[in-house]
């Protein structure tokens, strides 16, 4: 350590440091122009000149490159120092009169007009650019010429071929003298950010996005200068924990696994190959994925809806559907991408929410395919809200000359041509499989279809052609998030079914130290304050917060950490807690949402109860949002620490107890979904009680003919029933209903009733797969005329080889009978495909038959689109109708006359039909009693309501109960099976546990304070509170309580307390927050 005097004060620095570095540490400002932390100091600009007294005489030295020595005396603000600097600035000002940074310095030194000859240069010859270029390992520029002719230039003043366009020179130039196009021969483009779909740029070392897992930066070797020249490595020099290692190599890791799941996802279709849409040329024509980023709060424009060309708010936006989908003419994607209609509608709705002015949104579509749960309602609401939906296929998107606007011409439904001008146009691009994924599939030998999706059959939706390899998500066919999540769980189920015997064979048991009883001890709080690198420390003055924390009541220890969450700090923290005998801990760092479990683990390792812990969020809620105001941020950090300490003083240890899990399942419903779930669970090794209300297994599938892939449903059901019957672990209960349910996750007791006999089964989980039924229409002469029938009835004719099938000359299908109306405002999802498939079956039996399908939107989503195309090729006629102009049916002997208006010809047509098939909707069984017994909700259409429509599509909000099949929503067989496998997988996450943890942050009712008013029971959303008639008090079942604290808020006597968040703790936080 070297000691010397700086402006009269004693300071110290380390051997080898320069004056500037030490001055910076002590907050003494010295102006610089040619200095950069990443570069060796050069002393070029002389602006950092300071006065050195060596004991005998005074002289001037440059602070940036003069090494410190013991006993020296430095003055940075004497008159002669200022005079010297003033002269340098005056000279620079004469050389570069228009450079902002020099002008600022001139103002500081009170210089108006330099005394020297004015020139018009912008370079101050500081040499930063040439030095950094050298550091990049790439001397593309240098200082050329001598004396007054010296300048920064490339060899021979030509644009440089060796310049990599890294931009380091531009980034360090203090005056803005350099232009990359003067230096680099090739065009330099920013590195497009993948996350922002190329709308923003990123650096060569980057975190892909804020929520990325793992959330550590990665170096993109393809663009990092170091990997091109061997130079730079500045990141490694700057990293305070020396985490960057450029010498790391790719390694091949061999894993020994029992099965493989492929979830490689999709790639959005690239529309730049279509000239007519102008995507490559017109900046305001964007893909839906780009538009998604524009709308996102974390996107390139921070969620502000503006168009890329001029950053103006658009007033009119158009969407074009089916770009790269349902298209065999200009690309090979004949399939429907399934998700684009819905995402386009969502984008219209969100755009209108984001827009400050009324926004005109128009969606140009062929068929609006909103076949998912609640999607049709969303579509209708968007229409009501004023979004325009135009059934038209736009040929080309053109620029409006002289503007950035976009013009389109299209044919309206009445045949007239319209032209419109839009500010922006969004291309609803489809989903496709990446070439890399196709290559991977070839390497591992799984079969793909013509579109590169996996070749799967309807009955094994996640199985690839290779046993033991499963696939999920868009790889098995285009699909949305809920279906992808279901398939993800389904493939986990399929993969583990065959690995059941290996379960827990490689598990390591974690040994935890015994918990120390701190009950009688007075609070002794340790406060650990994290700098989070520079994330917190760069804004909040952490040492000041630490000093402050020491003054707070019962704080026994305070420490600053660079990264509190790092492995070594965790170990150190454990030791300190033990050494200092701390019994409560506050960590002031980031958010408890991500880091609480980690620090709680540290407490456990230090023998403390994990609930004796509190976090003060001084990063996400402070330094990151108040970076412009370090004073206020530091004050807020102190307040947050004080609030956390106030609460921590009142924290008590909370107990979690183990409850044994009953390792068996109850599956309700013996259709395809229920049977699949039962068989899957039995394969996992768990006993299953399978309950069916009728006398046979099979459900609706018993009435179905073929799947859309032409697989025979009947023979599959027979096999599945056999599999159920031959499984020893499955107990079948037909003609059985549920009469009572008690218990909770891991410990249910359910009463099964078969006539008079009642049996109680104990089970750990429940799967509800009660199915749905076909709607019996009350229109179009259904039930009155023998030629009119539903799909299931028509399938019956096909299965029985009824002569009417082959004899029929005219067949008509009417779609959406009982679906998408006011009474049932949902799409039944399967009927379009069913009708098209049946139409083709008719054509196969008798090619001369005339088949007409009257529809509203043809919803043959995904690969089903192939059938639709096939049907048109086979001569099946398709006519659209609107709900306000429904077809009319009247009897004509054995036949019926179907009259409808063709909307293209705008003419009434009539068909004398031998068979009229009504594509009637699928309706709920409205199982209210069952739903009430399990305390699970039904939505307004009678479908079971999942915990989260996208992310938890088979779970209920209540733990331990899962759903699958059509009781959730109408769906085809492959989706029912995938959901059933998903439910089995989710159920096995409970069944695989020996015990479940109960307690922790749950409500606890103080019996002495309870007056038995039942208020808490009424507000508890989880049915976790019961009333004890004997004691006349309410009691909480900790296994059902989710810790929301609603009971605590509603109780007039404050009898319930939410443990870990009780009123006294909250009051202490409130009081402490406002105590200054």
């Amino acid at each position, binding site marked *: 350590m070297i000691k010397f005097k700086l402006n009269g004060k004693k300071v110290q620095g380390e051997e080898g440091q320069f004056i500037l570095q030490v001055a910076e540490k002590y907050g003494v400002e010295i102006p610089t122009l040619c200095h950069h932390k990443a570069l060796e100091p050069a002393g070029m600009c002389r602006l950092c000149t300071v006065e050195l007294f060596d004991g005998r005489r005074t002289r001037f030295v440059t602070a940036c490159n003069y090494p410190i020595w013991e006993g020296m005396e430095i003055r940075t603000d004497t008159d002669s120092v200022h005079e010297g600097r003033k002269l340098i600035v005056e000279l620079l000002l004469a050389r570069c009169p228009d450079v902002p940074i020099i002008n600022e310095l001139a103002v500081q030194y009170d210089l108006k007009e330099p005394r020297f000859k004015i020139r018009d240069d912008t370079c101050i010859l500081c040499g930063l650019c040439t030095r950094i270029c050298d550091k990049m390992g790439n001397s593309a520029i240098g200082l050329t010429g001598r004396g007054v002719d010296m300048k920064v230039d490339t060899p021979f003043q030509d644009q440089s071929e060796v310049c990599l366009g890294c931009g380091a020179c531009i980034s360090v130039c203090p005056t803005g003298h350099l232009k990359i196009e003067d230096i680099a021969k090739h065009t330099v483009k920013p590195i497009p950010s993948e996350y922002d779909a190329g709308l923003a740029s990123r650096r060569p070392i980057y975190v892909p996005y804020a929520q990325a897992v793992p959330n550590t930066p990665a170096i993109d070797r393809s663009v990092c200068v170091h990997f091109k020249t061997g130079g730079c490595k500045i990141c490694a020099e700057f990293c305070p924990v020396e985490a960057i290692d450029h010498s790391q190599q790719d390694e091949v890791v061999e894993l020994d696994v029992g099965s493989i799941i492929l979830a490689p996802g999709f790639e959005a279709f690239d529309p730049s190959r279509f000239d007519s849409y102008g995507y490559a040329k017109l900046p305001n024509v964007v893909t839906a994925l780009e538009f998604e980023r524009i709308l996102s709060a974390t996107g390139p424009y921070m969620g502000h809806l503006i168009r890329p060309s001029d950053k103006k708010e658009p007033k009119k936006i158009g969407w074009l559907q089916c770009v790269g989908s349902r298209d065999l003419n200009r690309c090979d994607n004949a399939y429907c991408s399934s998700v684009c209609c819905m995402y386009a509608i969502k984008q219209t709705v969100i755009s209108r929410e984001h827009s400050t002015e009324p926004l005109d949104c128009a969606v140009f579509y062929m068929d609006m395919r909103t076949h998912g749960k609640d999607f049709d309602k969303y579509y209708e609401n968007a229409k009501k809200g004023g979004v325009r939906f135009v059934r038209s296929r736009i040929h080309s998107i053109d620029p409006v000359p002289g503007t950035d606007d976009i013009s389109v011409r299209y044919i309206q439904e009445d045949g007239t041509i319209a032209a419109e001008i839009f500010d922006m146009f969004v291309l609803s691009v489809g989903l496709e499989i990446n070439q890399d994924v196709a290559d991977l599939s070839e390497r591992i030998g799984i079969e793909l279809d013509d579109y590169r999706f996996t070749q799967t059959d309807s009955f094994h939706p996640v199985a690839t052609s290779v046993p033991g390899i499963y696939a999920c998500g868009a790889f098995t066919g285009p699909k949305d998030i809920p279906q992808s999540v279901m398939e993800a769980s389904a493939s986990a189920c399929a993969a583990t079914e065959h690995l059941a015997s290996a379960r827990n064979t490689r598990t390591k048991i974690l040994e935890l130290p015994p918990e120390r009883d701190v009950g009688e001890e007075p609070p002794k709080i340790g406060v650990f304050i994290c700098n989070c690198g520079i994330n917190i420390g760069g804004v909040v003055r952490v040492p000041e917060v630490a000093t402050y924390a020491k003054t707070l009541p019962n704080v026994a220890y305070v420490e600053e950490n660079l990264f509190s969450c790092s492995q070594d700090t965790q170990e150190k923290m454990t030791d300190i807690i033990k050494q200092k005998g701390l019994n409560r801990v506050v960590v002031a760092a980031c958010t408890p*949402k991500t880091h609480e479990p980690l620090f709680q683990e540290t407490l456990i390792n230090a023998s403390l109860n994990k609930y004796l812990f509190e976090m003060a*969020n001084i990063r996400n809620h*402070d330094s990151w*949002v108040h970076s412009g*105001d370090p004073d206020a941020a530091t004050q807020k950090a102190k307040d947050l620490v004080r609030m956390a300490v106030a609460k921590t003083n009142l924290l008590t240890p909370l107990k979690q107890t183990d409850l044994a899990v009953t390792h068996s399942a109850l599956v309700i419903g013996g259709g395809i979904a229920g049977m699949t779930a039962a068989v899957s669970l039995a394969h996992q090794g768990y006993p299953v009680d399978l309950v069916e209300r009728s006398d046979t297994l099979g459900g609706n599938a018993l009435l179905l003919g073929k799947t859309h892939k032409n697989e025979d449903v009947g023979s599959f059901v027979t096999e599945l029933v056999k599999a159920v019957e031959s499984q020893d672990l499955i107990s079948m209960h037909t003609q059985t209903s549920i009469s009572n349910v008690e218990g909770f996750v891991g410990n249910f007791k359910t009463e099964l009733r078969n006539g008079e006999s009642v049996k109680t089964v104990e089970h750990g989980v429940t799967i509800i797969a009660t199915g749905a039924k076909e709607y019996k229409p009350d229109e179009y002469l259904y039930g009155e005329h023998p030629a009119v029938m539903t799909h299931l009835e028509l399938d019956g004719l096909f299965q029985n080889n009824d002569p009417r099938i082959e004899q029929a000359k005219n067949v008509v299908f009417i779609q959406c009978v009982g679906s998408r109306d006011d009474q049932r405002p949902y799409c039944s999802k399967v009927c379009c495909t069913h009708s098209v498939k049946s139409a083709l079956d008719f054509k196969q039996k008798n090619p001369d038959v005339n088949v007409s399908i009257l529809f509203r939107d043809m919803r043959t989503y995904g690969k089903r689109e192939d059938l639709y195309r096939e049907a048109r090729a086979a001569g099946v006629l398709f006519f659209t109708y609107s709900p306000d102009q429904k077809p009319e049916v009247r009897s004509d002997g054995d036949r019926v006359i179907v009259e409808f208006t063709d909307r293209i010809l705008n003419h009434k047509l009539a068909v004398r039909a031998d068979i009229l098939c009504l594509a009637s909707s699928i309706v709920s069984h409205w199982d209210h009693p069952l739903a009430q017994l399990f305390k699970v909700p039904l939505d307004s259409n009678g479908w079971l309501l999942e915990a989260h429509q996208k992310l938890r599509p088979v779970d209920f909000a209540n733990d331990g109960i899962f759903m699958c099949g059509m009781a959730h929503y109408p769906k085809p067989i492959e989706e029912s099976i995938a959901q059933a496998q998903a439910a089995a997988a989710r159920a096995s996450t409970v069944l695989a546990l020996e015990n479940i943890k109960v307690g922790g942050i749950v409500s606890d009712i103080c019996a002495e304070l309870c007056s038995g008013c039942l208020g808490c029971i009424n507000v508890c959303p989880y049915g976790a509170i019961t009333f004890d008639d004997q004691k006349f008090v309410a009691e909480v079942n900790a296994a059902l309580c989710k810790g929301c*604290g609603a009971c605590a*808020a509603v109780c007039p006597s404050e009898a319930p307390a*939410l443990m870990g968040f009780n009123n006294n703790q909250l009051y202490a936080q409130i*009081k402490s927050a406002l105590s200054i």
Partner: protein
Amino acid sequence: MKEDRFEPKIIAFMCNWCAYGAADLAGVSRLAYPPNIRPIRVMCSATISPHHILRAFQSGADGVLVGG
């Protein structure tokens, strides 16, 4: 908080599952906002009763935000 002009003190009760996470995301997105709120994490906004709100005002809060 600066003394020269009125700066309100706001107590923000934030549900762990939504508003608190939203405030976290505001941080992740570096969305700057005035430093006047003092957040208190709760497990659900349902746990906030009028008592908590009144207590905040009694203790000197100028505003209370319940985010849930």
